[in-house]
């Protein structure tokens, strides 16, 4: 593993599989009566959030706490950051307080990269979403969810997603989730297709290792997983599409469309969902939709990331013995 997790593109296939395998080990901890490991005792993890995101923040917080790390939540709101303190000064402050890892969410693309490479801090940096750039732990938890559903919980260990066909639908232009997933899923051997109105596909997408389609109905029958991206309502005012209804008709997933997917295929959503916009309630609440599972998997995956970045080479949970013990 590298010292930081900034971009899903930085992960090799073996790095990624190691994280997913470690996450499976971590998931077993969640099944125990005491959901806690001593691994990161005495280490400090700072959740540095310049942008509101309760879901991602509590997911990282739960992950760090289950590994017994001390957690400091630093939110831009109501802090000196909103009074104009720079990213650099905030970083220097955290460094002085002895942060071993900084989990950063920032509205500016590249802010985590700057934090990791500017010499402002020594600790590990984990990108928890930067602007419209990347959200690598989201991609990891998505891949983890797909591997479990499409390959199997035990059968998946050591495996990647070779040959799986993944469709990502929606606002690719502004989506850090899409960017990270394209990198990671491709690294793991999957075939990725992006589906969006042409206005929401970035100029330059032709260099990405994936297909692009404007026709959702044509792609659905050839998909093992369909990931619906959240469409921000404010995009409507910028003429990306005419109306919410038209978007929903052309690119939303409803029951009829879901029926075109293969039997085994799953529906994914990074949340929060706009029910009635990109996904209907019927689809969101069906057992083919993994949205809630993704949240649970997020904690295990983030535990794995923090463990591998901070814990070094010690075994995370387990030895085979320990696992056998548990299985008794």
């Amino acid at each position, binding site marked *: 593993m590298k010292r930081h997790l900034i971009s899903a593109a930085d992960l090799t296939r073996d790095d990624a599989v190691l994280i997913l395998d470690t996450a499976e080990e971590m998931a077993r901890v969640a099944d125990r009566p005491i959901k806690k490991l001593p691994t990161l005792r005495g280490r400090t993890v700072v959740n540095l959030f310049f942008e509101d995101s309760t879901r991602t923040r509590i997911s990282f917080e739960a992950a760090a706490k289950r590994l017994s790390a001390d957690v400091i939540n630093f939110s831009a709101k109501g802090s000196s950051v909103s009074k104009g303190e*720079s*990213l*650099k000064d905030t970083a220097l402050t955290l460094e002085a307080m002895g942060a071993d890892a900084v989990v950063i969410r*920032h*509205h*500016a*693309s*590249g*802010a985590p*990269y*700057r934090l990791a*490479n*500017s010499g402002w801090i020594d600790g590990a940096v984990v990108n928890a979403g*930067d*602007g*419209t*750039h*990347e959200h690598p732990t989201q991609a990891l938890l998505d891949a983890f969810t797909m591997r479990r559903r499409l390959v199997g919980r035990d059968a998946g260990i050591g495996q990647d997603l070779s040959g799986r066909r993944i469709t990502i639908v929606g606002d690719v232009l502004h989506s*850090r989730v899409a*960017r990270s997933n394209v990198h990671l899923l491709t690294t793991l051997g999957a075939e990725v297709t992006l589906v969006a109105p042409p206005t929401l596909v*970035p*100029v*330059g*997408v*032709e*260099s*990405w290792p994936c297909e692009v389609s404007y026709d959702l109905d044509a792609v659905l029958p050839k998909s093992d997983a369909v990931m619906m991206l959240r469409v921000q309502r404010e995009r409507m005012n910028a003429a990306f599409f005419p109306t919410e209804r038209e978007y929903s008709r052309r690119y939303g997933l409803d029951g009829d469309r879901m029926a075109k997917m293969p039997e085994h295929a799953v529906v994914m959503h990074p949340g929060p969902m706009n029910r009635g916009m990109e996904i209907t309630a019927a689809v969101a609440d069906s057992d083919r939709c993994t949205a809630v599972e993704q949240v649970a998997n997020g904690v295990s995956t983030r535990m794995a990331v923090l463990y591998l970045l901070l814990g070094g080479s010690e075994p995370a949970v387990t030895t085979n013995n320990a696992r056998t013990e548990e299985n008794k």
Partner: protein
Amino acid sequence: MTKILIRGAKVLGGEPQDVLIDGETIAEVGAGLTAPEGAQVIEADGKILLPGLVDLHTHLREPGREDSETVLTGTRAAASGGFTAVFAMANTFPVADTAGVVEQVWRLGKESGYCDVQPIGAVTVGLEGKKLAELGAMHDSAAGVTVFSDDGKCVDDAVIMRRALEYVKAFGGVVAQHAQEPRLTEGAQMNEGVVSAELGLGGWPAVAEESVIARDVLLAEHVGSRVHICHLSTAGSVEIVRWAKSRGIDVTAEVTPHHLLLTDELVRSYNPVYKVNPPLRTERDVMALREALADGTIDIVATDHAPHPHEDKDCEWAAAAMGMVGLETALSVVQQTMVETGLLDWAGVAERMSAKPARIGSLEGHGRPIAAGEPANLTLVDSAYRGVVDPAGFASRSRNTPYEGRELPGRVTHTFLRGRATVVDGKLA
């Protein structure tokens, strides 16, 4: 009167000759001149002698942002880079949109003594693009403004642009357009293309520059005015200017040194030192710009020297200011990209960095031939020099150079402003 004999200089890169300066004027040019009594002799030893460079596009920041540059520090930087005249852009605080402000900048330039400062006036009041500034009053002022620009902002209203082009004809003025369609570049952070798609940074599409240039050359044709295009940055813009010139439209264009060398691949570092407006483009654009500068489609090199304080670059990309300092590295970058590639000889460099910018800006006494009777504005260049750029050695108050740690060829060893040395042996006099 001081007499200086420069011995064995390759005038415009030609055969070594001697040049005798007497007072403010070149007295004699020839082989084997004897030094008059009391004359100071400079052994040029085969260095290149050019007319003093002229920059049509400099930000001196004074008044208003003296933390990043002043007229004094900016002109010291200019002299270090071999310039004897710079045109100071109007986007100061207050904006140079009145006779009072342009006269202040002009006076500060006179006092600095390192190079001539010719203020540029704003086209519109407050650079807001709505109401013409008093262009005539600025022209009639002591500063004698002939170049007008809202640089930093585009004169995007077609009617305002038309009127400005027409109005300045009365006194031989020229409008220098910063071509950037504002709606197409809202939130723009870098060139729109393969790299912006990956980095998730807001795109600044080439079409936002090209569409404005296309409109403006057609406007210039329609009203019979001349127009100058600032910092042209795309292959498409080159095609439009080439077409306009072939039609006989009175258009001139400039390119910056950084657009001749750097590409948007550098933005992958998210280091804001590479953040500039217009943004760094692709390799294809860079090659088209070099070719256009060589064949005359692009008339001149202008630095767009844009100093910013350290804190405005020591931050995340989106929060950083746009711009790069350029006066002290311009000639080296041109040597590397144009001379050492065989695209341009030194006479061509002199035309594009001295003679033509002076003509476009109607600046007298600069960009003249190196000949007897001409003003002694001269730059001596050691083209064999190779060195790594160290911003700590800059005369500019700001350090935001994209070339830190990069090896560049060439070094200005002497600069003469009307016979007075402003740079001697590579150091400010």
